[in-house]
Structures are given as structure tokens and as C-alpha cells.
């Protein structure tokens, strides 16, 4: 508008397409500036380094859960695992963060995470007291942690155990390294 009429046929189409593409380009830039940081924001849990790296897992990550004399041969017992939890911005003091099943076999001890390898429910003791059983989707395991039915994708997650003589008494301490693993896959793959 307002142009001398003779120029119109020449410049109008160019100008129109300049305005069209300009609008689309600039509009996309605005969109990108607003959404890309936002997408990074939403993807924070993947992009940020995990809290475990700056967490304070004391030394080797093993913690004493019980004494050997607390366990009777072949009778599983569950013990809480303590940990300091950082829930986003909140720093909780040390409190129970998970449970571990301990089974004594002579002078050795098996430790299993109570988190079901199927979908993460809490595994409890079967009605016979001689097997493990998950109340959610009926995963069943032997006392050795082996699957008893086809529901679980793998055996119960065994945890590293160290038996340590305490210097003060002649008790043997059961020290376990607690870890979490990805659920629903055949491999035992540690989380974070």
C-alpha cells in the first residue's frame, strides 16, 4: 500500500514472501527460545548428574544390618536399611529407605533386596514361611532367591554381604551393601 503503482507487479510477490518467511522464521525463533530451555527443565532428571555422586554414602557403602546371632538357620528375617535421603530440595536426616531379607546358611548369609525385580513391590514371606512371595503380581521365589514361577523376569536381587567380627564382643556383624536395580528386565542392572 502507498507504493507507486508501477512498482507493484515487481516487488509485491517478493515482499509478500519476505514477510511470510520472515514471520515464520521469527515465530520459530520465539518458540525455540521459550520451549528449548523448558524442555531441558523437564528433562532435568536425565540431564543432571545424580545425587548419589555428591551424596554421603559412608565409605564403602556397606552398613551393618544385624548380628549373625540374630538369625536362625534357614529362617529369613527382614531388616531396614538406613540412608540419608535428598528428595529434590529437602534433605532428610538418616531414616529407613529400604528393606533387606537376610537368610542364614551355616556361617554364611544371603542378602536379598526386598524390592521385587518384577515391578518393584515389596517382597514378603510366602504363606509356608519357606519361600518369598510378592503380593502384587504373585512373583514367587525360593529362599535362595530363584524364581518359583514365570512371573518375575529374574531372580531376587542379591546384595553383597561382608561378615565382620566386631572387636568389642565376639559377635559377627552382617554388613550389606544396599543397592537398587532396574525392574522388569532379565538383567540385574544397578540404578543411578
Amino acid at each position: 500500500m502507498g507504493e507507486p503503482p508501477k512498482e507493484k507487479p515487481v516487488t509485491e510477490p517478493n515482499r509478500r514472501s519476505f514477510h511470510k518467511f520472515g514471520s515464520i522464521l521469527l515465530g520459530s525463533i520465539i518458540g525455540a527460545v521459550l520451549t528449548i530451555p523448558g524442555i531441558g527443565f523437564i528433562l532435568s532428571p536425565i540431564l543432571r548428574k545424580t545425587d548419589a555422586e555428591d551424596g554421603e554414602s559412608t565409605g564403602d557403602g556397606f552398613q551393618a544390618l544385624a548380628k549373625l546371632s540374630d538369625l536362625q538357620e534357614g529362617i529369613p528375617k527382614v531388616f531396614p536399611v538406613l540412608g540419608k535421603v535428598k528428595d529434590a530440595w529437602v534433605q532428610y536426616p538418616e531414616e529407613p529407605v529400604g528393606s533387606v531379607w537376610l537368610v542364614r546358611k551355616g556361617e554364611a548369609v544371603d542378602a536379598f533386596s526386598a524390592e521385587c525385580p518384577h515391578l518393584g513391590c515389596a517382597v514378603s514371606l510366602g504363606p509356608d514361611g519357606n519361600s518369598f512371595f510378592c503380593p502384587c503380581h504373585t512373583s514367587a521365589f525360593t529362599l535362595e532367591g530363584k524364581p518359583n514361577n514365570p512371573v518375575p523376569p529374574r531372580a531376587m536381587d542379591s546384595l553383597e554381604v561382608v561378615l565382620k567380627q566386631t572387636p568389642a564382643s565376639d559377635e559377627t556383624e552382617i554388613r550389606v551393601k544396599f543397592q537398587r536395580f532396574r525392574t522388569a528386565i532379565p538383567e540385574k542392572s544397578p540404578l543411578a
Partner: protein
Amino acid sequence: MLKQLSDWLDNRTGYKHLISETLDEPVKGGARWKYVFGSAVTTAFMMQLITGIFLMTAYSPSSSTAWGSVYFISYEMVGGWFVRGMHHFGAQAMVILLFLHLLQVLIAGAYHAPREVNWWLGMVLLFITLGFSLTGYLLPWDQKGYWATKVATNIMGLTPLFGAQVQKVVVGGSEYGNQTLTRFFGLHVGVLPGLLIMTLAAHIMVFRRHGVTAPKSSTGSEPFWPKQVFMDTVASVAVVGVVAFFAIAERGAPLDAPAEPSSSDYPARPEWYFLSLFQLLKQPAFAGENEIIGAIIVPGAIVAALFAFPLLEKFIPRKLAHLLACGLVFGLTGAAGLLTMQAMTADSGDADFKISRDKADVARRRALFLAGNPKAGVPPEGSRYLLLNDPLHTGQQILEQKCLSCHYFDGKGVMERGKDGKKVMTRQVASDLSGFGSRGWVRGLLDNPSDTKYFGTTPQCGGMKRWKKTSKLKPDELDKVADFVASFAKVGNEETIDDWMTKEDVTKHPGLELFKKDCGRCHTVDAGGALGEGGEEEAPNLFGWGSPRWIQRMIRHPEAADRYGFLEQKGQMPGFDETELAVREMTVLMKLLKGDYIPNPPEPAKAGSH
């Protein structure tokens, strides 16, 4: 294929018609740069909507979690500082752009008939936007938002008839807390966006009905797409660019220390575009009973006048009405500018304001530092306890409020206003508490009890001075005594004197015999007198001296026989029971005196002096 699909979709939805309706809207007189303001405001709003939704996924509205979640957004999440920065500066851009849009519409006379309704809708949009900024300001639950909101809602409470009730409903009670936050959050992310979108839709609809107010000289028309769209987009890029510039230059949005309702000297200020109203209230004309005039009636009258602009022409000639409207707005803008400048210069020239602001900044830096420190972090009780449980921050505060009117700390008392209005440092009449109970403190005392750090300013406590005059202990012997006495501070809360006295650390300590011989002449430790029989002069019992248990008893019961009960009443330290010094306060005070806290990082230590 694509054509078929779009034809099918168009057949079912009619979207092509809708798009062409939107884009081919004729712009009377052709596209112009001066028509971009409406779109620029809309872009600013879209920006707020997008960044706001992102923020909503990470924000937690409760008085214990809000600050922590905003901290997490700003300092821990990827790009969080930028998203929040865009939202923060975008809000200000929106207010500015709305004002520019208003001016443009006013000057163009676009409020005259038949566009009255759209002027009113625009006014409504302006108030919704101010509602956004008012509610959003509180959400971080930091000092700044907390105090500014308290003032704003108290002004609301001044409204005649139902003000108090409205205030109570908005605040969610008479106390500011969880209910205030959930309500403000609900308003900010639910009610106001809904209202704004509906009003904006109506605004644009009505605008399309009447079109732009083209200059009289212009002829013909041109479709909205693409030229006007291009101009609008360029303006939008400028808006987003300027906002992004501020967000980056300022490294995001500011976050003050967590809201602390017990603050006694927080210098509350509203957002800059409310500063003129803030300053208006400070005018002597609106003091006391006239407060309501400055707080409600004047702003209310301005709003009423703005609403009445389109109706003026019914009573006076259109030209005169226009002149009057423009004159009023320009006059008000000038006045507001003047008041804003007045408010700013008043603050920058006010030493007390600067002191309070510096203090608030020290608290802010401390809170941010602790929140990000793996040894601290926001405690589960709530963000407020980040500072409340911090010995350095709260312990220091308690020390200043309750101890430093007599004691000194690190050679300093507190500044107090004298009768003549001038600020002077309190006079020292008791020992300097920095390092109390440490070896250095004891060794210094043994060297020179008359030093102001010890009993130099305490008239009745002459015992140590008299001992010094007669004592023949050599420096290396004094070292041993100091070592021994400093070890008392390690006595645990549960430890009994019998357990302690049989420890090898005590029985075989090189300073033990010297202590018995010299100190034991006046001081006692155990009831049996094994470490000293005392009696030559009256002196406090030294079991656990310098340990939290000793200090706590000294604070709670300075008049006890095993402390300084032997002094004359007027020379005694006043006792502090649990109503005067709560258990939690005692705990942080002890930790401060024992140096049991996370020290500040060394870098910007300058602003820490008061």
C-alpha cells in the same frame, strides 16, 4: 496425499475457513508499526503461559516447601534459572507493554464510540495482569514476596464495609501461611489465566468487529497476513529478546531469604511499578485516618476515571473529552514517575534502609549457600528452618538481641540508638564471648584478667585480678593450666563428675597439680574438693566449664551458688528461662559459641558488617 488429508480434515472441521478468517482480516489503511502493541502484549502473555506451565511442574505451594522448590528451580534444575528469569522479567514486560498499548489506544482515540466496550475489556485485562503480578510475587515465599503481600492484603483490608472479610478470604485466615499460598497459587495458575484468556478472546473479537483506528488520511486496506503479522512478529521478537537479555544479564530471577514472619527490620518494598502507590501512602496527607484516601479512594478514582473516558463525549465535545483524557493520563504518568523517583531517592539516601537491606542480603546469601550445601540442605520442617537452625545466622541474632547489651563479641557490642537519636555502640560490662571456653580464651585470661576481653569491665569480678597479682606461675605452667581448663569444655551432657574425674585425661593431665594448687584455692570442681577446695575467695564451680552444660546453666541460673550467686544482686547477670530463651534458641546459641556451624565461603564477605 497431503492435499487429500487436509481436504478431508477441512471437510470435517472447516479449519481452512477459520484460518483464512484469521489471517485475511483486512487491516484498514494497511499494516502499520503502531498496531503492534496488542500483539506484543499477547506474545508477552503467551510467554508467561509457557514458562509458567514449566514452572508449575516444579513448584510446590506450601509455606514449608515453596522457597525450597523455587531454590531448586533456580539453582539445581537444568535451565531453571532461565525459565524462571523469563517468567519474572516477562511479567514486568507485560505490565510495560500493557501501559504502552493503553497509551497508543488513548492517543489514537481508539476508545471512542463504537469501541467503548473494548476499552473496558482492556481495562479489565490490565487489572487481571496486576492481579497476576500481585499473586505471583508471593509464590516464592521469600522475604520480599511475603512482606510485600502482607502490605498489599492489609491495604485490601482497608476497603470500607467488607474489606476485612475479603482480606480474610484471600489470605485464607488471619495468618499468612499454607492457605495463603494455595489460594494465591490457585488464583495465579487457574482463575486468573482463565479470566484473562476469556477476556482476551472477547477483546480480540470486539477489536475485529471494529477494526483498527486508522488515521483519517489513509485509504484502502490490506490483509493481516503477511505484512502486519510480520510486523507483529518482529515486535514480539524484540519483546522476547529484551526479556531474555534481562534474564541472562541478571542470571535469572532474584530469590530472597525464606519468609520469616518474626523479622523485625525487613525493608519491604513492592515491585517497581507499584512504587508510586507505595510512595503515595507515605505522603503526610494520607497519614492516620486519611490512609484510606491514599490507599483506596485515590487509586479507585483514577480507575473510575479511566473507565469513564469513552463516556465523556456524551457530555462534552469529543475533542475536549479526548484532550481531557490524554491530559489526565499524561498527568498521572508524570505524577507516578515523580512518586517512583521520590521512593527510590528516599531509599538510596536512607542509611537505615541500607543497613536493613544489607542485613537482608546477608541472610539471603546465607540461605542460598546453606540450601546448596550437601552438609545442610533444606530441612524437612521447612525452608524457614534453614536459617532458624543455623547457628551463624540465628545464633548471631540471639547473641545480639539478648547478650550483647552487656557482653561483647569479637570486640564489638551492638549499635543502639541513644536518647539523642544517634547510634552508639553498647557499653561493655561483661566479658567478650568470642572463643569463650576455648584454650585461647583461657590462656588470655590467665595472662591478663584485667583485659576488657575478660573481667576488665566487670566491677565485681575482681577475684582473677587479685590472683594474678600474687600468682607465681610461669608462662609454661600457665600453658599447662590453660590446656587443662580448656579440656573441661569437652565434658558431655550426660557425664557425671565421678566418671570424668577417673578418666586418664584428667588424672594424668600435666596441668592437674598446678590447677589444684593455684585455681583450687578459690574455685571448686567436685563436691569432695579433690580438684580444689576453694574458699579463699568466692568463685564459680568449674566442672565442665565452657561446655554447653556449663554455659546453659550459667544462662538459665546465673544466680546459682555454683555460678555467680555470690555477686551482689545488681552486678549479676540476669537469668533467661525457657520463655525468654527457647530450647531451640539455646541450641543454636551453644553451637555458635562452640563454632559448630558451616562457615560461609570466603569470597564476598564484605557486606557482612553491621
